[in-house]
């Protein structure tokens, strides 16, 4: 019996005709993309649509701040709120405010705000390292949502719908643009087995072809399910040899059926992926300086984990993945990482410690590699937090005005856009909703959000449904 290494295996090149249908069926489910390594054409996307507009960005890194970072403690300074801290809170009713108990008090930020960089953007001491790259950031302070519930907002942020089954923005982009690198999935989720509110639906391709759903890379342990061979190389080889003989006969008996041929080919690919995917996720070849810049050398396991994921994100976009999303680790039994109804000081600081350095390093690294120009970085939670509180060290859900930021990829750095009122309650200047952000992200990628449609259930579905406007004021 021959002894070949995994890498020497070649795909079948015999006289097997693979129909386009079977071919497209094969290209699915995340890492299944790799099945088509080496094939030049890419039929998995809507080439006929493109480009709608001149693209500024080619790819997106989405830093999902799950649970809702407090805007008034991070990027939206409210000196009057601090002045009135402890006083009874009264505000103009806003239908999007969470119904709250009586007796709430204003709660000033425990963090100090300063201006940073040449642009003089305000950032609190919660994010000391991000201040170093502040001139790249476009801080949007006038986000609004639909309902102050995590599940609703998280699904809205990802899919443009707060309940219905709809594709994630990563799936839309993967489908709309096709792959920059045919060897890789279009949408990778760097996750740590914490499932955000709204569930896997957040990352689902829904009615778009299954190949556009997020391919999951875990931070801890085995990065991709079933990627570590169960057998020694030789033993697996022996099994594959046995299968090859048997399967060939079966296929012949079935007249070379497409499905069987595809399935046979997948075994060759799968064998190869066992080496390729870990390589892609392996950051050990990065320099010590890079590792240290990201903070991968920090001792806390959550710190390491997030640093590792930011570094992997860079490696993935560098390799041509269109949309990489990173979730935050959930360190305590909060509903979600940033959901501090209590222990605001302790847990917000902890989450900031975990994410601050890697996020800053990611932007710096992208910039120094010339990638920031065409890589859009989006930092967003699904909501903000209330400027008022029923206690002294916690804030509740807030969607009538909150902050996100964008960087690179055709967005103007060092600017703020929109504003909330003096207490940080409601967006009063240029209020935006998530559909506007989606429209803008698609626009930067060269996609018109009104023309990126997919017919499903009798409708031409859009990421932005019937909403959304491109925020032109923040474009370069």
């Amino acid at each position, binding site marked *: 019996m021959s002894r070949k290494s995994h890498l020497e295996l070649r795909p079948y090149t015999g006289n097997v005709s693979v129909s386009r249908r079977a071919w497209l069926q094969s290209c699915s489910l995340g890492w299944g993309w790799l*099945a088509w390594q080496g094939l030049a054409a890419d039929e998995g996307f809507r080439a006929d649509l493109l480009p709608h507009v001149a693209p500024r960005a080619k790819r997106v890194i989405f830093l999902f701040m799950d649970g809702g970072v407090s805007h008034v403690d991070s990027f939206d300074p409210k000196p009057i709120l601090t002045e009135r801290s402890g006083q009874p809170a009264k505000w103009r009713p806003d239908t999007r405010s969470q119904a709250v108990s009586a007796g709430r008090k204003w709660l000033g930020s425990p963090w100090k705000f300063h201006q940073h960089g040449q642009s003089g953007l305000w950032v609190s001491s919660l994010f000391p390292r991000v201040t170093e790259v502040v001139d790249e950031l476009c801080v949007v302070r006038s986000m609004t949502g639909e309902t102050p519930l995590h599940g*609703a907002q998280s699904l809205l942020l990802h899919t443009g719908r707060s309940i219905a089954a709809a594709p994630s923005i990563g799936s839309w982009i993967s489908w709309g643009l096709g792959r920059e690198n045919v060897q890789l999935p279009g949408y990778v989720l760097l996750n740590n087995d914490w499932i955000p509110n709204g569930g*896997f639906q957040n990352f689902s391709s829904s009615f778009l072809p299954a*190949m556009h759903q997020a391919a999951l890379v875990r931070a801890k342990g085995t990065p991709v399910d079933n990627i570590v061979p169960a057998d020694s190389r030789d033993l697996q080889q022996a099994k594959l*040899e046995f299968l090859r003989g048997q399967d060939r006969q*079966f296929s012949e008996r*079935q007249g070379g059926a497409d499905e*069987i041929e595809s399935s046979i080919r997948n075994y060759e690919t*799968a064998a190869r992926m066992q080496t390729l995917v870990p390589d892609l996720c392996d950051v050990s070849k990065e320099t010590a300086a890079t590792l240290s810049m990201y903070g991968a050398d920090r001792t806390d396991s959550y710190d390491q984990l997030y640093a590792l994921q930011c570094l992997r994100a860079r490696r993935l976009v560098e390799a041509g993945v269109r949309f990489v999303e990173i979730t935050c680790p959930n360190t305590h039994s909060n*509903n979600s990482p940033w959901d501090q109804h209590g222990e605001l000081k302790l847990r917000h600081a902890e989450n900031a410690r975990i994410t601050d350095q890697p996020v800053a390093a990611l932007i710096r690294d992208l910039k120094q590699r010339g990638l920031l120009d065409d890589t859009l970085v989006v930092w967003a939670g699904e909501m903000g937090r209330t400027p008022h509180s029923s206690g002294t060290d916690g804030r509740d859900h807030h969607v009538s005005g909150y902050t996100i930021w964008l960087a690179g990829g055709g967005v103007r750095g060092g600017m703020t856009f929109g504003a909330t009122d003096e207490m940080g309650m409601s967006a009063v200047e240029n209020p935006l909703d998530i559909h506007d952000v989606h429209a803008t992200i698609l626009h930067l990628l060269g996609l018109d959000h009104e023309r990126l449609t997919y017919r499903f259930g009798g409708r031409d579905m859009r990421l932005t449904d019937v909403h959304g406007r491109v925020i032109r004021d923040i474009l370069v």
Partner: protein
Amino acid sequence: MILRAHPRAESGILRVVVVRRTGCQQRLPGVDGAVMASWSERDLSRDVRTGWCSVLVILFLCGCSSACADDRLLFFEQKIRPILVQHCYQCHSAESPELQAGLRLDVRAGWQKGGDAGEPVIIPGEPADSPLLRAMQHERGVSAMPPDQPRLSAAVLAEFSQWISDGAVDPRDGEVPRRDRQREWESEFQERLDWWSLQGPVAVPVPVVTGSSWVRGPVDHFIMAKLEAAGLEPSAVADRATLLRRLSFVLTGLPPQLSLQQQFLSDVSPDAAERVVDQLLSSPQFGERWARHWMDVVHYTDTHGYEWDVPVKHAWRYRDYLIRSFNQDVPYQRFVMEQIAGDLLEPRLDSETGLNESLIAPLMLRLGERRHGDNSAAEGISQEAVSSMVDTLGKAFLGTTLACTQCHDHKLDAVEQRDYYSLSGMLMSTRFSSRTVDAVDPNVSILESLREIRGQLCAVLAKRWLEALRDGDSSTFAAVLQAVPADQQAGPSVPATLLDYWKRARTNPVTGEQFRVEQQLRIAANAANLKVLADFSRADGASGWQWDGFGMRHGLAADGELVVSEEGDRAIVQLLPAGRYSYLWSARLAGLLQGPEMDPLQPVTFSVLGVTGKFASQAFVVDRALNPERMQFPSRPQPVWSTVTAGQFDSLEGTVDAAARRVYFELATKSLNNYFPPRVGYGGVSEAECADERSWFGVSRIVQHAPGHPPQDELRRFEPLFSELSGESDWQRRLRLLVQAAVLRWQQHQCTSEDALLLNDAVQSGLLPVDLAGDAETADLVASWRQTASKLQPDRTVGSVAEWPEGRDDRLAIRGAYTDLGSTVPRGMVRMFPEDQPLNAGESGRLRLARRLASERNPLLSRVWVNRVWHYLFGAGLVRTTDDFGHLGEQPVHPELLDYLAVQFMRDGWSTKRLIRGLVLSAVWQQSSLADRRAIDVDPENRLWHYRPLRRLEAEALRDSLLMVSGRLTSELYGPTVEPWRVAEDASKRLFRGPLDGGGRRSLYLEMTLMEPPRFLALFNQPLPKQTTGRRDVTTTADQALALLNDPFVLEMAGHWSRMLVQDGSGTAEERAAVMLSRALSRPPSAAEVEGLVLLARESAQLRGIEPSGMMAAEAVWADAAHAVFNLKEFLYVP
């Protein structure tokens, strides 16, 4: 009017020009007609563009200022009309290429009448309430106007506001043809009704064909006729081994048993196939397989997903119901009616389980993603739930995308927007409620025994108590009193317990005067304040209140009824005042009590005399909310008055829908609490508490009163102290006689409610002994009670539905926005299936809906189901789009066959098994999967069914096959779900890790959470259970190969199989390999195949350093062989 370069708009410009030039000039009242004659709106708009407008207008207006008496008119002409022309007329005028939302803004009557919503868009004098201005201001909840453009300038908006404030003077006369759009829609609608799938199926004659040696039955005639017409031949019949494997998978989802293989392969009689089919159809695994198909249709899950992933209350009972229904071949018509309105049908009793099957079925309506709570977004929440239900009803039963009409009339099918709201009114006149689904009471004889024991216990206790009350200081009564210290700081108030009277007796005894004054005050206060809402001491004292559960059904207690302790060292828990108590027999029996509807805008304060314990809940349930988070778990072990206010519904007020939400008060034990277990940690419920089945509550009376004026204890039980016993100076004796009289009445079954309270007081304070240690007779009786009570079978409960006492219509949501409501739509059927008689006011209509949908007059029901069955058997439907028989679906190539099957199905009594039997015995189904090359060229998509395509195992069939072939599969049916194996757990969502092999249970018993469905199954295309999936994706991916190569579950199954083989130990390597292949592939292997597997085993032994002599006993070696067999394509694909 057209201002933007818009291709579609060009013709509009031309038409506008022509029309305006030929007449229709506007006249301002009071203005000289001659001056006005040439002023057309088109000119204006053009001039606006060129900047001339204002100049002209100003010149003109200056010129006639003296003639214009009304400045407001000038203001309109100068400021308002140009803007309307420029920004609105394109879509909202008589000349609009397509009039949007039915709204005209080119005549006054247009905005007065409004658009499709039928309400004015400008309310003179009320700019803030004028929808048009709100739209122009881009306010939330209304569609921003003009669409897709920046907001008009603040100056313009201010001018509009001013104009509306000033009365919205508008000189533009003209009629709005009221029924225009309606008439167009009517004719359109009538045309749409001609669609093929809306015509009743007609039994056409079976076509005559020449290839009669091939055809076996009518189905084959239809197929053959089309094949002959195309000049094609069907494929050869599949070989017997293949046929058996195929039959076994489509009918049971499992490979054939070895015994069946042997039976079938050796049976050469002509009806061998029929016998096997009948055998498989009658196996319990048939129901499991077909239940799973239905679970795709109704998107079954065990949780509601979203944020907290709370459970769908005992959804697994619905899954078990499905298995039984398919196994019993319940007529499909009945099955469908049960899903929609099983709670309103005659119960269908399952004799084996004693369950009321029909009451379990409506759980179907609850499946889907649901938000937690009943918060400020109540409308949004209910809208989501309705949308999900309508979508499922439409797709599952009608093959129609009804949910489209949430926002607008269907673009192509005969469904209009009102249909959606007709249905939503019906569905939302339903309340989501957990129900006891036992059809027969399993506990009657046990309760008889318990009643007897309790009677004996009463007698024994009465004897003991009278002994404890005997005269003299040595009695228990006296001893307890003596041990109580005197109260030195006795206040002026009159006590309410025996011990408090005793404490006062020695320092500051209560006087008759004090007592009478206090009592009169209390009586007067009660008389002035209290209004009895419900009296549960009488069977008929609580009209409007509904209860459920064995606990409540058997819970009517007379005054002084004993609650026997189920544990501990006391004989009884308490003596009760008359009422209804869920735990009268056991805290394991369930209870649910629901009050009448309340007005949430008029808060009511009321007090309940009762008990609650062990996480029985007290809640205000808001209509449409599935998971009421106005729920508390008060702990009140002894009967006391507790006050609640049905208020604090602030967030439900001021919603756009001015109608108050319906609210009711509810008490529930855990198992009948719709929302139990609640989200993790809610109300301090621990996971251990969730698992404990006990909980209880009881109510005696409920009275309404003013806030701050709760019921006062009228102290009547203490009256004798100050009347017949007042002469007794010894307070110990005085109290003893008081209690003794009560015990005597109790013993003679003449106990009053005051006696019950007094005796309970005496028991709880230890004055009357109830310990087990002190009396053998008591101990024996209680032991006997406990032993008997442990046999009580608790209620089997499930999240079902119930009707509101009255139905309520819904309002149409304009463009589907619940913030923008239009007219009320009467509840009723969708228009394409008109109902003969209008609904009664008190009727939700759900039962009518069920009957109408499931009637033979519905042309879609049988067609859609017959097509689904065809799909499950053939891998594709006669209509490929199984969930859409409308214009966007595909039309069948064999409509006559579909009709034939649909009609035959109804004639056969809607029997799914007969339908399946007929199809799998047809020649077309039994064809080989090997297609003729020429036929493929002519018909590559197999529309004519010239072969029967090979199929990959579905996710469940694959996993179940792995279990079965390896010998790990259990034959256990039914029961609570099994947690799937997970990489990571998340306790906050109750996502725990189950055993890797799922305990050997079939896949449909694994817990399906919306948050994280089982990943192994998802890899093989088990659909995400959010909406109806008639057709699963079938993808072929490298991830699947990786799973079969490396997934720990697959490896564990290989290991298990190997252990079984090695333990068996018999035979040679060749014999073992042959058994393995035969078992996995359901056919005898060739010698070469056997040789190949043995070779692999030898290779494995060599690599593992195992001597050839030890190979047969080496589990690792045979695990490798088993693992390789699992990876064979022939294992995964069924020809």
